[in-house]
Every structure is written in structure tokens, then in C-alpha cells.
């Protein structure tokens, strides 16, 4: 059959337009990925930094008393729009925002001769009186009490009004400085604790189960049922695992260790169950690749099955097991729904295994509920989580490539 030129051209045009549609649909995935990355970097990029990782979540207040009275000063540089100078105290107060987007006032400049260079901590009483301290630059100030409560300046009034009120008084009886919190150190530590504890529980159980199924078990119905039971775990949604954790593990841990309510321990037990299928599957895959003859050879040399397993088989399976572990870690870092139920959602600075705390993902969830969804913090933590997950995936892929290169 000969097709005319015209028909061919028409068909090619139709083909190309269809190809165009396929191409555009396919790029949706790429578009989504790029948009997510762009959004979280644009929104949270500014917040990510060493101090975000290290700081407390709680604000920390210090009350200081200024030991000298006000004077008269002048300021030589120019002031920006948000900056206001007090000529009685030789300081500049600035309107700015904290990590959670709330408006705060900071002391951005303290003059050489300013009375605020000589302050003492009101909450630190030693024999010789109050301990002298230095006000760090850019400290956030919450309230200033002057002249025995005659004048009180609150940060909610804004820097300009605060300076006006400050100028009315001659002595500062008490000034509340705030070391702004909003840091994620607690959640970071909680995530690391959770990973460690979960792996300690899940890896032995998972690896041992995989070894049993692959090396020891006979191919009977019992084995088949057990394999199906384990496989069914993969289809369960995370929130159901959360319910399980709340229903089984929280009371269990309460009863045995004496905690009250959720804890990192109950969370680890829950995550261990979620990870079991992952670890079992990777271990099984790794074991299957090892040729059968190696086992026979080892046994014929006089080793018992235990020695064969631990000294011959397991070492070869380690890359595969590691892959499972890496995927599992990624899962733990990203998990939210299950942990909200199995641990709880209370952001802590001091992380105790027996108590509730939030992981990074749950911290995001907490930051986004409440009166002001904190997109900046959520995006910043997302950058950290995504970075970790991507790195783990890359390492796992490299491991898989190395394993497949090994030939027996």
C-alpha cells in the first residue's frame, strides 16, 4: 500500500501534536518538583542557618537593671526608617521581626558612654549584689520600667514610642531582654534520637526475620502466611500506624517504664513497625543474590549454620541491608501523621526519651497550625528535611550500584 505524500504529512503533523501533548503532560512532574524546590528555598532560605539549628524554641528572658541614670547624648550617623535614637540613653531601638514573624524591637546600637553599658542581671543575686552583664547587640527588648513604674515602655508600642517613653524617665529599674527562640534544636535532637532508637529495634528484628525466611524456613504454608502478613504492612497508611502506636505502645510503655502519655520511646516502637517491611525486603533481596553454593561450601568446611550466617552470608548482605536502613531513615525523617498520634506534638528544648517532643516534620505541622502559619520556618525545616532525604537516596543508589557490580 502506498501512502500519498499529503497523507503522510498530515499524519506527521498529527503525530507531532500528539507528541507535544505527551511531552507537556510529562513535564508536569518536572514542573511540580521545580516549583516545590523554588518555593521552599525562596520562603525559608533566609532562615536556614547555624543559629536556627542550635537555638532554643522558647524565648529566654533576662531582667536587667541599669546602674546609671540617663544623660544627654548625640548621635552622629543617619538613621534608617525603622531606627529611633534616644538622646537620653544613647541607644538606637529598631523595629524588626523575629523568627516566627512577630514584630519585636531590638537594641541595635549602644553608645560608648551610654548608661546601658553598665547593667546587672536582676535574677542573679549573689552576696555582693547583682551580677554585671553586657547587653549583646541586637538584643530584643520586651519592656522597660522607668522611675519606679512611673513610665513603662512595651515593645508592642513600637520602637518610636518606646524611645519617647524612655526619654521621659531618668532611671531604668528593670528592662526585660528576650533571647528570641524559635530555634529547632530540640526537634533536631528528637529526630536523631528517634532514628537511633528505631533502628536499634527495627534492624535486628527485621534482619533476623529476613534471614529466617530466606535461610531457615521450609517452603510450607506457615512461611507463606508469615510472608503475606509482613507484606500487608506495606499497604497500611501512616495514620493507622499512629493509631496503633497510641493504642498499643503508649499504654505498653506507660505500664512498663512508667511514662505518662506519649514519649519518644513509644514513637520509636511505632516507627520500628513501619520500617520492618522495608528492612526485611532489602535484606531478603540482598540474601537472594548470594549464590546457594557459598552456603554449602561453608557448611562442608565444618561451620554450623550460625557461623555460616553470621560470618559468611551477613557480611555480603550488608550493602543491601544498609540500603534498607537508609530508606528507613528517610522515612523516619519525613513521617508526620503517625508520630502526631504516637508521640504527641509538644515542642521541647530539653529532650527526654521518656517524654513527648516533636521531630522536625511534626514541628512543621505545629508551626503551620495556630494563629499565624509560619511559612518561613516550615520552609526552612523543609529544606533541611529534603536535603537529608535526597542525600540518603543518593547514598542508597550508590550502594545499589556497587552491590550490582560485585560478581560471584
Amino acid at each position, binding site marked *: 500500500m502506498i501512502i500519498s505524500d499529503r497523507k503522510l504529512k498530515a499524519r506527521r503533523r498529527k503525530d507531532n501534536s500528539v507528541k507535544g501533548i505527551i511531552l507537556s503532560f510529562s513535564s508536569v512532574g518536572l514542573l511540580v518538583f521545580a516549583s516545590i524546590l523554588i518555593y521552599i528555598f525562596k520562603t525559608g532560605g533566609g532562615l536556614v542557618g547555624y543559629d536556627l539549628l542550635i537555638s532554643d524554641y*522558647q*524565648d*529566654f*528572658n*533576662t*531582667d536587667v537593671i541599669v546602674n546609671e541614670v540617663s544623660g544627654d547624648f548625640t548621635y552622629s550617623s543617619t538613621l534608617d526608617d525603622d531606627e529611633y535614637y534616644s538622646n537620653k540613653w544613647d541607644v538606637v531601638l529598631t523595629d524588626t521581626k523575629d523568627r516566627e514573624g512577630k514584630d519585636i524591637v531590638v537594641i541595635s546600637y549602644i553608645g560608648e558612654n551610654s548608661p546601658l553599658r553598665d547593667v546587672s542581671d*536582676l*535574677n542573679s*543575686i549573689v552576696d555582693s549584689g547583682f551580677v554585671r552583664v553586657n547587653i549583646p547587640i541586637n538584643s530584643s527588648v*520586651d*519592656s522597660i*520600667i522607668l522611675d519606679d*513604674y512611673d513610665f*513603662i515602655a*512595651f*515593645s*508592642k508600642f513600637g520602637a518610636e514610642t518606646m524611645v519617647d517613653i524612655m526619654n521621659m524617665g531618668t532611671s531604668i*529599674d*528593670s528592662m*526585660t531582654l528576650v533571647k528570641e527562640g524559635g530555634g529547632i534544636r530540640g526537634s533536631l535532637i528528637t529526630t536523631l534520637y528517634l532514628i537511633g532508637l528505631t533502628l536499634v529495634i527495627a534492624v535486628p528484628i527485621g534482619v533476623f526475620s529476613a534471614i529466617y525466611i530466606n535461610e531457615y524456613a521450609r517452603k510450607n504454608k506457615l512461611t507463606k502466611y508469615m510472608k503475606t502478613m509482613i507484606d500487608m504492612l506495606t499497604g497500611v497508611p501512616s495514620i493507622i500506624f499512629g493509631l496503633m502506636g497510641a493504642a498499643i505502645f503508649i499504654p505498653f510503655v*506507660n505500664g512498663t517504664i512508667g511514662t*505518662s*502519655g506519649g514519649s519518644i520511646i513509644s514513637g520509636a516502637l511505632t516507627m520500628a513497625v513501619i520500617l520492618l517491611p522495608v528492612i526485611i525486603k532489602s535484606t531478603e533481596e540482598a540474601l537472594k543474590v548470594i549464590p546457594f553454593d557459598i552456603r554449602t561450601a561453608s557448611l562442608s568446611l565444618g561451620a554450623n549454620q550460625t557461623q555460616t550466617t553470621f560470618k559468611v552470608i551477613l557480611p555480603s548482605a550488608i550493602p543491601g541491608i544498609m540500603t534498607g536502613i537508609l530508606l528507613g531513615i528517610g522515612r523516619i525523617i519525613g513521617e508526620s501523621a503517625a508520630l502526631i498520634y504516637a508521640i504527641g506534638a*509538644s515542642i521541647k*528544648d*530539653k529532650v527526654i526519651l521518656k517524654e513527648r517532643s516533636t521531630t522536625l516534620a511534626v514541628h512543621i505541622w505545629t508551626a503551620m*497550625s*495556630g*494563629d*499565624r*502559619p509560619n511559612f518561613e520556618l516550615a520552609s526552612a525545616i523543609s529544606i533541611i528535611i529534603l536535603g537529608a532525604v535526597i542525600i540518603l537516596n543518593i547514598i542508597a543508589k550508590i550502594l545499589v550500584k556497587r552491590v550490582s557490580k560485585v560478581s560471584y
Partner: protein
Amino acid sequence: MKKIFILIFTLLLVTTLAACTGNKDDMINVYTRDTSSGTRAKFMSYVGFDAAKSDDSVLVDGFNTAGNDEIINAVTRDRFAIGYISMSTLSEEFKALDFEGVEATEENVLNGSYAMSRNFNYMLRDSYDFDNNGIVTGDEETIQLISEAWVAYIQTKTGKVTISGANGIVDITTGKTWNDILDNYPVCSLDNSNITIKFGGSDSVEQIARALSTDFSAKCGNFIPDHNHTGSSNAYKGLNGENSDPTDNLFIHIGFASREFNSGEVGNITGIMARDAIVVVVHKDNNLTSLTAAQIKAIYEGSITKWSDLD
């Protein structure tokens, strides 16, 4: 080709369904506190809708239940939302409506012209014997002493400045400073950094409670504050009522209510911490400036359902 047709057809179907059943932009999106909220109880009595104090079934269809913070969230983003919150949590990101023509300000609360005012009350536990061994020692005693010191603290000028800074209404001019009475509370000179004090109850009070606990923690051995605010009704329950056992989720040491404690909620140590008011709030772009009690009741019971009915 067939697939494309199916796709287009479905889209048309969806759009038609939306058009038929959908809200044209006018319906009032009603938010309320849940039935354990002291704010709700007071609010409903002020607008003359007593039946709705603890009963959801008399409210308009399609209402939403939310806490103080979530109502703020809603009116900030949703142009059609209306809700009521504590005056201490007002901010510029949304709009506060006048009540019966009176603006919601601290002065108007103090001079009595703004009608929807109320007290923030606190209560302590009666029993600190957490392990039920008959005596209060060690950490139990420390928690009791810190709680009692806290009560003294909120009555000092220092404490009241903190309350005022967090938008609670108090009279700062009376009382001693914390440093004046510090010596009466030796527990605050100890290192309490392994003690957790649990605060709970009304979430209208949460902002003030958190400011107080941050400030007082630095003054009293750096104890760890733990806040779980779930509603005024849960204050008494978590202190001396059905949820007061240490293993209970709602167990607390210091509780707050945004209403008066009723006759069934008895505690040895209780009192008024600050004054506050309830404010009706809407989105910044909403044209309204004031509502009467009758109008508010009509909105919440469903006899007024559209914003255009209020002009």
C-alpha cells in the same frame, strides 16, 4: 481522542455542579469556639443566645468549630469568615468589630462601656500528692511551692507588667515588685531546671500564660513550662476534677478560665488574674464596622446568612 473528550466532559460536569450548588461570594462563614470554651459561654450570653452555650444543634448549618488561634487564622485568610476571640489576641492582620457601637479598647473595658468583658481567672491544684503515698515531698513539694510563688508573682507589679505586655488588662499601679517579696519564696533561689510546671485551661489566656511562664521561669529557678490549653472547662477538670490524675492527658498544675468558675468547680486557691473582653472579628477587607447583639445572634443562629443582608 476519546480520552480528551472524557476529560472535557468531566470538567464541564464539575463546573456545572459547582455553579448549581456553589456559594456565590456572599455567604457568611461562621466560626465558633467549641462547647468547653469559657469564651463561648460568655459570648453566647452577651448576644442573648443562651441556648447555644453548650449545644451545637441550635447553630446555623455549616458552622466551624475552632480554637482562639484558628479563628484568628480563619479571619486572616478568609474574606467571608466571622468569629469571636479574646481581646488580648487582637492584631492588625484582621479587623475587630465594634459591639453595639462601642469600640473594643482597654479604656472602654475599664469604664464599662464595652459590654462583652470578662475576667481571666486562675486556679491551683488542691492536692500535690501525685504518687498517692499520703505525703507531699521532693518534686511534689517543689511544684506546690513554685505554684504558690507564681500566684504571688502575678499580683506583683513585675508580674502585672508582664500581663499588660501580653495585652491583659490589669492595674499596674498597685502592689510590690517581685524583688520586694522574693525572699518569702526560697524555692525560687533553687535550681528548678528539672521541674516541669504544666499550665492549661482556657486557650484565650494562652498568650498571657506563656508570657508569664517565660518571665517567671527566669525568676524562679528556670523551671520548664509546659502549656496545653484546651478550653476553660478543662481547667478545673485537670486540676481537681475528673482529669486530675497525673497519668491523664489533661493533667495540669495551674489552670485558667476565661469565665467564672461555676459552683461545681471548687478549688482552694483561685482568683482573678486580669480582665479581658470578647471581640467579634472579621477579615481586614470586610466593610462592616459594628454589629449589635441581635445581629450577631441572627448570624449564629442562621436567620442572617449573607453578608449583603447586613448592609
